[in-house]
C-alpha cells in the first residue's frame, strides 16, 4: 500500500473520535457507500471502456433482496439469517450484472450508455408496477440492520467501521481483479478486442465477467445502503440516483479506485452544505453546473487533475535539475 493511501486509511480510522454523529452518519458513511457504487462504475469505465447506467439497478437488486429477506414493516418477504440474505443479495446482483453484460456485450462508448440506461429504466418502471415482489411505489420500509458478532449495525459507529471495511475490501478486490489474468483480458478487450480474439480468448465471457464483477461491487453498496436508509423503493433505482452516480464518478475521476470516493465525498458535501448558501430547491442546478464545469474544464475529474498536476510539477523539477547538471557539465 502506498504512503498517501495508508495515511488516508489512518485518518479514516481515527476520524470518528473527532466528528459528531451527524457527520459520521450523513457525510462519512453515506459518502463511502456512494463511493463503493461509483467504484463499480469507474471500474467498468476504466477497464472495459463502457459507461454503464445500470449500476444503481444492480445495487438496487441487492438492496431489494436484503429488504425482502430481512425483518421489515411492510409485511412482505421471508426472514432469513443475515448471512444468507447478504449472500443471496450479492449473488443476485452479480447474476444481474452478468445479464446486463450479456445484453450490452456488443456495445461500447455511447451505445453502452443508451442500452444500460434503457435497462435501468425498465427495471425502475418494473419496480413501480410490480406489487408482489417489489411492493410498487412504496417499496420496503422499516428494515432492521442485523447484529453481527454481537455488534449491532444499527449503531452508527459500528456501521461506519463496517462500511469502511467493505469499501477497503471493494477497493482491494478491484485492484486484485484488474491484475489477475481475467482482469488483464478485460483490459485487452477494451484496447484491442480483435487481437484478444486472435490469440484465442473469446471476448463475450470476458465482458460478461467484468459486468458480473461490477455487479458484485455494486451489490455491496446496495446492501449497505438499505441498512443505512432502512428503506428502499422505486425512487432508489430511478433516473435521479442513476445520474447522480455518474456525476460522482465524473467529478472524482475514473482512472484510480480512490477517485470514486473523492467524487462521493465532494457530492455529499455539495448536497449538504453548498445548498445552504443558495436555496434547497436549486440543488439540481448547482450539481448540473458542477458537472458541466468538470466535464468541460477537467475531464479527468478532481483526482485525475490533481495527479496530472503533481506529475507536471515533478517533471518540471526533474527538468530543472537536468538543465542544471547540463549547465554544470558544460562549464
Amino acid at each position, binding site marked *: 500500500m502506498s504512503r498517501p493511501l495508508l495515511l488516508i486509511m489512518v485518518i479514516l480510522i481515527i476520524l470518528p473520535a473527532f466528528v459528531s454523529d451527524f457527520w459520521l452518519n450523513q457525510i462519512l458513511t453515506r459518502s463511502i457507500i456512494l463511493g463503493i457504487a461509483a467504484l463499480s462504475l469507474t471500474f467498468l469505465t476504466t477497464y472495459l471502456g463502457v459507461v454503464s447506467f445500470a449500476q444503481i439497478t444492480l445495487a438496487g437488486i441487492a438492496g431489494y433482496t436484503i429488504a425482502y429477506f430481512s425483518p421489515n414493516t411492510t409485511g412482505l418477504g421471508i426472514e432469513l439469517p443475515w448471512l444468507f440474505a447478504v449472500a443471496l443479495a450479492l449473488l443476485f446482483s452479480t447474476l444481474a450484472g452478468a445479464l446486463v453484460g450479456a445484453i450490452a456485450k456488443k456495445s461500447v462508448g455511447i451505445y453502452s450508455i443508451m442500452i444500460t440506461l434503457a435497462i435501468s429504466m425498465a427495471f425502475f418502471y418494473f419496480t413501480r408496477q410490480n406489487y408482489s415482489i417489489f411492493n410498487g411505489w412504496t417499496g420496503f420500509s422499516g428494515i432492521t440492520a442485523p447484529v453481527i458478532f454481537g455488534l449491532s449495525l444499527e449503531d452508527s459507529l459500528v456501521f461506519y467501521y463496517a462500511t469502511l471495511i467493505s469499501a477497503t475490501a471493494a477497493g482491494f478486490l478491484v485492484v486484485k481483479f484488474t491484475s489477475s489474468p481475467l482482469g488483464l483480458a478485460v483490459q485487452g478487450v477494451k484496447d484491442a478486442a480483435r487481437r484478444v480474439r486472435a490469440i484465442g480468448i473469446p471476448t463475450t465471457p470476458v465482458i460478461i465477467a467484468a459486468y458480473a464483477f461490477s455487479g458484485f461491487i455494486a451489490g455491496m453498496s446496495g446492501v449497505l445502503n438499505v441498512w443505512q436508509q432502512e428503506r428502499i423503493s422505486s425512487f432508489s433505482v430511478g433516473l435521479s440516483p442513476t*445520474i447522480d452516480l*455518474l456525476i460522482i464518478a465524473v467529478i472524482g475521476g475514473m482512472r484510480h479506485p480512490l477517485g470514486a470516493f473523492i467524487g462521493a465525498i465532494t457530492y455529499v458535501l455539495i448536497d449538504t452544505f453548498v445548498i445552504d448558501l443558495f436555496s434547497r430547491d436549486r440543488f439540481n442546478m448547482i450539481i448540473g453546473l458542477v*458537472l458541466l464545469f468538470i466535464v468541460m474544464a477537467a475531464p479527468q475529474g478532481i483526482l485525475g487533475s490533481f495527479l496530472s498536476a503533481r506529475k507536471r510539477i515533478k517533471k518540471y523539477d526533474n527538468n530543472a535539475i537536468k538543465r542544471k547538471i547540463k549547465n554544470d557539465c558544460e562549464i
Partner: protein
Amino acid sequence: MKLFFIVFLNGLTLASLYFITACGFTLIFGLMRTVNMAHGVLLLLGAYIGYEVVEITASWMLGIIAGGLSCAVVGAFLQAFILGRYQGDELRQTLITIAISIILADILLWAWGGLTYQISLPEMLQGGIKLPILNVGYSVVRLTLIGMAIVVGVLLWLLIAKTKLGIIIRAGVDDREMLQALGFEIKKIFIIVFAMGAALAGMAGVIFGSALSISPGTDIQFLLSSLVVVIVGGMGSVGGAALGALLIGLAEQYGLAYAPTYGVVFTFLIMVTVLAFRPQGILGRAEK
C-alpha cells in the same frame, strides 16, 4: 375485440408522438454521433413555450410553431457554442448534454413550477367522433396526431431524399471527413441539423401537451422512449424510428391493457431480442 382495436388506436397515437420525438433524436445522432440526452428537456421547453403562446394568442398552430422555433434556437445555441467544441469526443458530449438537461430541467421547474399543464385545443379538434364499424367514440385530436406523424415522416423523407440539404446530410452520415474535405461548412450543417432535431422535439412537446398533459417528468419519459425507439429501430435511420416507435408504442399500450403489472417487460423484451439478433437495430447499419 373492441378493446383490442381501441388499444391498437391508442398504441398508434403513442407511436406517433414517439416517432416525432425520436426523429429529431435519430437525426442528430445519425449525422453527429451525439447522444443528445437533453432531447427530453427540449421537448418540455417547447411544450411550456407553446402553452404560453396558445394562452396569449389563442392560436394552436402559432403555439406549435413557437414551441418548435424556440427549441431550434436553444438547440442551435447548444451546438454552436458548447457541443461543437467537442466534436468527435462523443462521450464528453453526452456528459455535457446530461449536465445541460439537469440545469435546463431545473430552470423549467423554477419558471413553471411542478404543476400539470394542458394546452387548449382549437374547437375543430375538441371532442370525439364516432368511428365506423367499431361504433365507439374516439378523440379527434388523437386521430389528428396520427395524421401529423405521417406528415412529419413524409416531409422528413422528402427533405432527406430530394433536397440539396438532404444530400449533404446523407453524405455527412456516410463520410463526415470527405464532406468536409469537399469544402462544405460542416459546422454550419451540424448547427442546422441540431436545430431541426430540437425543433421536432419542441413541436412534439406542444402536441403532447394538447393531446394529454405536461408536467416535470414528461422530459424523462420521452428521452427514454426516444432512446428505446432508436435502439430498436436503428440509430440514425428515420425509417427505423418509425418502425421502432410503432413497435414500442403498441407494446406499451397492449402491455398496459392486458398485463398492467408487467407492461414494461414487453418493451424490455423487444429491446433485448432486437439487440441479441441485430445489435445495430432493425433498420440500422452496422458500424464500420
